[in-house]
């Protein structure tokens, strides 16, 4: 399935910058993106570490912007045929030419804040839930859009997501001028409020374009150890909050201790190994440059270093094995 582009005001084709995944009421209308399918497979790296029935997110700095996946925002009033509460997942992409970058950034930041608050207390999802429900409450529209793939429908879904972001942005605070990139990589517990500020600082740095390509800010819900998180490439960072499920049989939730994530060590350039032919050619040249006396000395030395000639037993064994005298050339 390819992404559907649409023409912008200047007439050039750009793909939507916002995508929404949800479902309709009917059994047939299972979860799908509305109007257009987001491009690429960048989320595949984290697919095994995310349980899409619970809140999780991934934010990645790209070479010319960022992309964000936020999953697990529950609807406040929409249910499917069997009474299950319907959820929303959003993908936002900020790149040159993708709408108003400030609006997208503020909306994305607000979405991330809502997700963190909702993880600790599900009631905190209310604002985000209401904002999505306002735009996506018409079930027949949702059912139709999940089957449609066209530039116009992609644009229509994008417009509605941007409306959601605009509504969320209204309640956002002012911009923080002192945003700095978080260079160290770590894994911390999503249920500890102290970690939220660090996490939001890391996310804000990426959303304001202060990150390095390859930086990731993630909320993963199938990870409790740093060793299970994909290591960032040298120079990039990854900041992860682990959103673990409640403990078994009413036990307290397992707490995730803060852990460092080691980046991949830069690979040292490998010295090319000369081939056998190259080696013998080099050796041949070296021998040719020697005087006759030096060559004689080298031959003597070589003879002395050679393994001792094999005795009669070895000769006999070789004879039995090959049926020929050792040293005779094979046919």
């Amino acid at each position, binding site marked *: 399935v390819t992404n559907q582009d649409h023409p912008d005001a200047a007439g050039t084709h750009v793909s939507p910058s916002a995508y929404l995944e949800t479902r309709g009421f009917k059994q*047939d209308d*299972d*979860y799908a993106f509305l109007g257009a399918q987001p491009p690429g497979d960048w989320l595949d790296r984290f697919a095994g570490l995310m349980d899409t029935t619970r809140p999780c997110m991934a934010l990645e700095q790209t070479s010319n912007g960022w992309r964000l996946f936020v999953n697990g925002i529950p609807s406040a009033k929409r249910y499917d045929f*069997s009474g*299950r509460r319907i959820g929303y997942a959003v993908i936002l992409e900020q790149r040159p030419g993708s709408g108003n970058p400030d609006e997208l950034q503020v909306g994305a930041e607000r979405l991330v804040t809502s997700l963190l608050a909702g993880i600790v207390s599900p009631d905190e999802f209310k604002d985000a839930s209401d904002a999505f429900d306002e735009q996506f409450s018409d079930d027949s529209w949702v059912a139709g859009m999940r089957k449609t793939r066209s530039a116009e429908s992609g644009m229509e879904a994008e417009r509605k997501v941007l409306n959601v972001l605009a509504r969320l942005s209204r309640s956002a605070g002012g911009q923080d001028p002192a945003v700095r990139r978080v260079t160290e990589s770590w894994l911390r517990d999503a249920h500890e409020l102290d970690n939220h500020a660090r996490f939001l600082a890391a996310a804000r740095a990426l959303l304001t374009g202060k990150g390095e390509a390859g930086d990731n800010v993630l909320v993963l819900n199938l990870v409790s150890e740093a060793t299970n998180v994909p290591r960032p490439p040298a120079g990039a960072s990854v900041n992860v909050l682990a959103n673990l499920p409640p403990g078994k049989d009413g036990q307290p939730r397992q707490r995730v201790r803060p852990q460092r994530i080691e980046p991949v060590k830069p690979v040292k350039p490998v010295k090319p190994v000369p081939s056998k032919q190259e080696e013998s050619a080099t050796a041949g040249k070296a021998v040719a440059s020697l005087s006759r006396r030096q060559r004689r000395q080298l031959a003597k030395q070589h003879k002395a270093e050679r393994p001792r000639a094999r005795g009669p037993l070895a000769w006999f064994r070789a004879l039995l094995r090959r049926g020929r005298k050792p040293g005779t050339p094979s046919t």
Partner: protein
Amino acid sequence: MTMPASGFAAIAPTFKVAMLGPSGVGKTSILVSMLDDAPRALAHQPVLLRERDDVSQLRLQSRREQLRGGIANHSFDSDALPGDRNEAYYQLELRVHDSDDVRINIDFLDYPGGWLVPSPDGAEDHRPHWDEVRRFIIDADMILIPIDAVLLMEARTALQRKAVVAHHRIAAVEDIVEEWATVRQGTGRPSLLVLAPVKTETYLADNGGLNDHDRELQTAVTRAYDGVLKRFAYRATAAETLYCPVDTLGCVELTRLDWRPDGSGNFQPRGRFLVRPGQPEISIRGAADIMIAICRVITSYTGEVAKQQAQDYSSRKDEADAQHREMTVHLVPRIANWITGRTRAVERDRTRFGWQSVQYMGYAEQLAKAVAVLATTKYQRARRISVEEVVR
């Protein structure tokens, strides 16, 4: 000499258990019930079932809590069970007691039921995922078909009965089961098909229920899935078919079933449940039978393979013994063989094959013991469906 690490793994590759059912029928609930109830079900059995990795453990824990979260304020609310959007693998390991070597991997797969039948005018975004899931199903050793017992038992009119068939996507299930059975023919691997009605609390009396409609439920299930059973029976005559009703919650009673028309001539049925007074705790029943059936099939098959492997190594050792005897009868060839190193090679083979034969025989004995105990365990609810009966 040490046994190669992959020794047992080589004869017991991972067994696969796939679910086959549409959205909202109870795939995740039955899977969670089975895995959740496994420690209790296998407490007196010679086998242990454990998650193989953190991801499976966390995923299972999460689903378990979602299921428990549905029971609140004296009613069951499926609000707490969000639908899945991606396929989810649960990787487990079956260990035989008293043996650290005998470990058998079992993978369970759950997926969004909407993938089972793509709507004709729908977008096919999930197609690559479904292809992978379908490959897993066709390659699976066991297929579990969850069935909504409430819909089967409460459908009264012709339209409602038609809605039940459509709701369960029985035609699609038939096709996949037939393909699965065809592929498995001649593979020598075990095949187990389980028809598992869920939400049976209102119709069975052995878990606190008020009514007993056990026979009616079985009749309704076998009648609705007659095509599936026939297609399976024709293709896989040696395979096992099991009927196993499951209470995933056990403490609820159906109060109402709404047949809500969806505007396209079909129904979107939804049951409403209340928690039984005085029984507020989840009490799973029937899921243990499925686990025991799976363990039986797996241990029995693996035991047979281990036995065959032991016999194979034993005969190879006998051959090496005979060769050794022949080589050492006369003096001259004896010296020649010793000089050429052949004697040492044959001696090495004798030791290796002898040792491996003993190892595999040990595995086979341990598995045979486990099979014997599992075989004597009575099912709480499960019943075998006779192939002859189905075909007739």
